[in-house]
């Protein structure tokens, strides 16, 4: 086998010819998360076609997003962009009355250099609704990074804390029981869009350690954005939020707590353990709690132990998931990833390295901007038990006897915190369980023999 084994952590880079979702797909979960928002994607038919097919049934549920479809006159600048957008935004205001309109810039607006950032403040003043601009285009970003661009834009709109926290303690009287219940006085804001029940699970987890979460970016409503500013601590819950992190540090002067991400019981524990010392809190009962979760996963762990995984890479959750799966006893051949921010993911990468050492397995190769065609060759050589991949490759790989899991499901499933560790394994083991059910039927390869991509048997 020509695949190299690494002792230390290295990141390779390939051609970038890989399959992923366009970053405008972030509107699908963000419009649901931010209840009073409206997302306007300024782009072409191609963008619209992607959204309508990728989001399937959501389209029919009167979504709070739409396309501002550019026509030939817009491209050749025969029409006035500002007037066009104004007309559409007034209509949106009339029909839906949102608290914020978010313009999603696309490849086309980049190429024709439409000045969305310049027009937004003017129009905002004119129609009286906040207008945010996020350039979530396929020229620069992949899939989940779309959320990153939106949250980075939203960070600018977070109010400043009224006073420095230290001073506030003196001037504003805080109710006694509140002081008693929580240890931290500086506020902690978590960033990353999670379903509201997952967010409250993480809130609770920190509450157990007497740490109060003072807000989330984004909140359930745009009007409830958290206060951010000097002295506020922030911590990310997802690995693809590096722009947001940068914006919070540089522009909002927040303190970033660099931590692994709360995916898997090991990640969740490490995440809490990084947050607690910042507020001078000693963690309580975390080890036992993690132990109990692992205990409860036993039936799934028996299924995955010793099995191998190959991440083709498309949503940036790959490193965290790989780290969790290695801890579960799996062997990871390759971690493909669209983009690797070594600084933002530093703690996660360190935990990956430690986990590999602990589990006595070589550190998997990390491939940034992978090349799908090369990866398929490698999958053919390695014959992994499971390939985590996009839908474009899933059926063809299954037909060649390689079990696959559709990577996008990890983006939409609830995977954060202690309680949801089981959901991750539920996803990972599903192809393995299915395979077991069908084991006796034979015919694992269902393609014609002469095909050059033929794999197993």
């Amino acid at each position: 086998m020509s695949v190299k084994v690494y002792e230390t952590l290295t990141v390779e880079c390939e051609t970038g010819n890989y399959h992923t979702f366009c970053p405008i797909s972030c509107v699908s979960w963000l419009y649901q998360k931010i209840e009073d928002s409206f997302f306007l994607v300024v782009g072409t038919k191609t963008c619209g076609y992607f959204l309508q097919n990728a989001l399937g049934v959501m389209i029919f549920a009167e979504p709070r997003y739409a396309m501002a479809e550019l026509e030939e006159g817009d491209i050749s600048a025969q029409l006035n962009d500002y007037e066009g957008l104004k007309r559409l935004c007034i209509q949106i205001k009339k029909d839906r009355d949102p608290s914020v309109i978010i313009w999603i810039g696309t490849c086309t607006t980049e190429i024709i250099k439409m000045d969305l950032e310049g027009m937004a403040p003017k129009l905002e003043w004119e129609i009286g609704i906040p207008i945010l601009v996020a350039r979530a285009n396929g020229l620069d970003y992949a899939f989940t990074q779309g959320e990153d661009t939106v949250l980075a834009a939203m960070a600018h709109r977070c109010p400043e804390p009224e006073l420095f926290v230290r001073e506030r303690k003196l001037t504003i009287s805080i109710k006694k029981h509140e002081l008693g219940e929580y240890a931290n006085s500086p506020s902690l804001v978590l960033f990353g869009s999670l379903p509201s029940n997952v967010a409250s699970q993480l809130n609770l987890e920190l509450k157990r350690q007497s740490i109060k979460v003072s807000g989330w970016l984004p909140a359930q409503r745009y009007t409830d954005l958290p206060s951010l500013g000097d002295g506020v601590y922030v911590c990310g819950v997802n690995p693809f939020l590096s722009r947001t992190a940068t914006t919070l540090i540089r522009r909002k002067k927040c303190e970033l707590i660099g931590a692994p991400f709360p995916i898997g019981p090991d990640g969740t524990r490490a995440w809490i353990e990084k947050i607690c010392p910042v507020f001078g809190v000693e963690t309580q009962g975390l080890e036992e709690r993690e132990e109990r979760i692992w205990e409860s996963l036993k039936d799934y762990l028996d299924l995955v132990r010793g099995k191998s995984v190959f991440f083709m890479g498309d949503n940036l959750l790959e490193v965290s998931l790989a780290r969790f799966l290695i801890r579960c006893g799996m062997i990871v051949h390759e971690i493909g990833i669209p983009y690797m921010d070594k600084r933002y993911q530093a703690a996660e990468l360190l935990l990956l390295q430690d986990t590999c050492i602990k589990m006595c397995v070589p550190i998997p190769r990390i491939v940034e901007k992978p090349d799908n065609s090369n990866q398929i060759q490698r999958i053919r050589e390695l014959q992994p038990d499971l390939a985590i991949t996009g839908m474009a490759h899933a059926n063809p790989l299954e037909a060649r006897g390689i079990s696959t899991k559709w990577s996008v499901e990890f983006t939409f499933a609830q995977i954060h915190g202690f309680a949801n560790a089981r959901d991750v394994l539920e996803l990972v083991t599903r192809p393995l369980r299915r395979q077991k059910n069908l084991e006796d039927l034979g015919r694992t390869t269902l393609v014609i023999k002469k095909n050059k991509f033929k794999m197993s048997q």
Partner: protein
Amino acid sequence: MKLAYWMYAGPAHIGTLRVASSFKNVHAIMHAPLGDDYFNVMRSMLERERDFTAASSSIVDRHVLAHGSQERVVDNILRKDKEERPDLIILTPTCTSSILQEDLQNFVYRASIISDSNVIFADVDHYQVNEIQAADRTLEQVVRYYLDRLDRCYRQEKLDQFLTNAPSVNIIGIFTLGFHNQHDCRELRRLLRDLDIGINQIIPEGGSVEDLKNLPKAWFNLIPYREVGLMTAMYLNKEYGMPYISTAPMGAVDMAEWIRQIQKNVNTLTLSSSIKRVDYEHYIDGQTRFVSQAAWFSRSIDCQNLTGKETVVFGDATHAASITKILAREMGIRVSCSGTYCKHDAEWFKEQIQGFCDEILITDDHAEVGYMIAQMEPSAIFGTQMERHIGKRLDIPCGVISAPVHIQNFPLGYRPFLGYEGTNQIADLVYNSFALGMEDHLLDIFGGHDTKEVITKSLSTDTGLIWNPESRLELSKIPRFVREKVKINTEKLARQKGIETITVEVMYASKEAFNS
């Protein structure tokens, strides 16, 4: 700039890719930014394709924006040429690349000199044509590319000797992601076998570009769907004098018409040869009476009950026109409004359904269709996936008769819309849509099957447990389909632990407890 939520026909490059990936051993390279290769997902999901879709991207990123694609496109073409050895590579522009105004034609020219594969540049304009038009164009472009290379005298003079001995046809326009195309194709094969007519080629689905040079060997061409294939047929007609039949063999009446056209074409060409003239009348009669149940169905009591019921039909030109005619002419159902989103083919459509419906609607705005349906309040709708959802909202049953469709309209079972088996399928579809509506209506009048409002699924509502306001709110946020289960589990845990007031903490403790 216009506000859009939904579109009936996709962007142009999708049409080109559908044609390219239907041919055997043809590779399409999109000049596109990251994420524009969603076509591969659709093909893999909807068609449940076992093979990798032969479409890839030459990625347009910041670098390309600043410096141009330079060698990248040519390199990508040559790489595919080496890796997969396709017969033909089609460089496909996207909306992004068409505004970059790079000289892609020049890249194609350069690559074609070096590569073993043939290379062409798909000649479609993103801002002028949609998916359907682009597919039609690309198919013609590919056929033209392979036929124009043939020697001129070979084309003209030898044409007569060139024909196959026995009557044969080409079927043009069967391709990937087409609405029930695979089943229709099988049905057409069966029909032609019955009529003793050979099939020279079926394109693009499963066809090889190397064989395209033999297209003129067929006696004439069949164009089952006018959206895709008509341009090719016209080209072949002009250059090679090949007649074509563009009637869709859908519904018993049009089936007969279609077979008679075939008969006419065969007989015209057999005039000079020794082959016997054909007469299919007997076949048509037998099939219509006994193979197709549709003619009998029209006379049965079931169908009598449908007389005068109102419907709305909407879809692509071929399907909407055919279904309108079937409903009105063959089943006596009243079509209040019939429409299509194929605006480019509006004239033909109007002419076809003249006299078969009260109103005609030509639009590609789904809101307009929805408004019209709401106004008319028909008993059933026959439309696309979108009309199905409009129907759901208005409580009107809908049969899906045309693209765009979702995965449930790529059935594994045999469901042609064309041919005599197709007439049976359509009759079922129509009857089931109405019967369901009627049943629903009766249930409504008599207050339903059962007393409706069931407060809770558990037998006793009085659990003695108190949900505090936060936990109540949290419960309401849990997706409906699992909410009941979460509620039961939480109360179970609370009872086990002797907790009286349920808080959010208790809820999530129970999730952990019952997970294992």
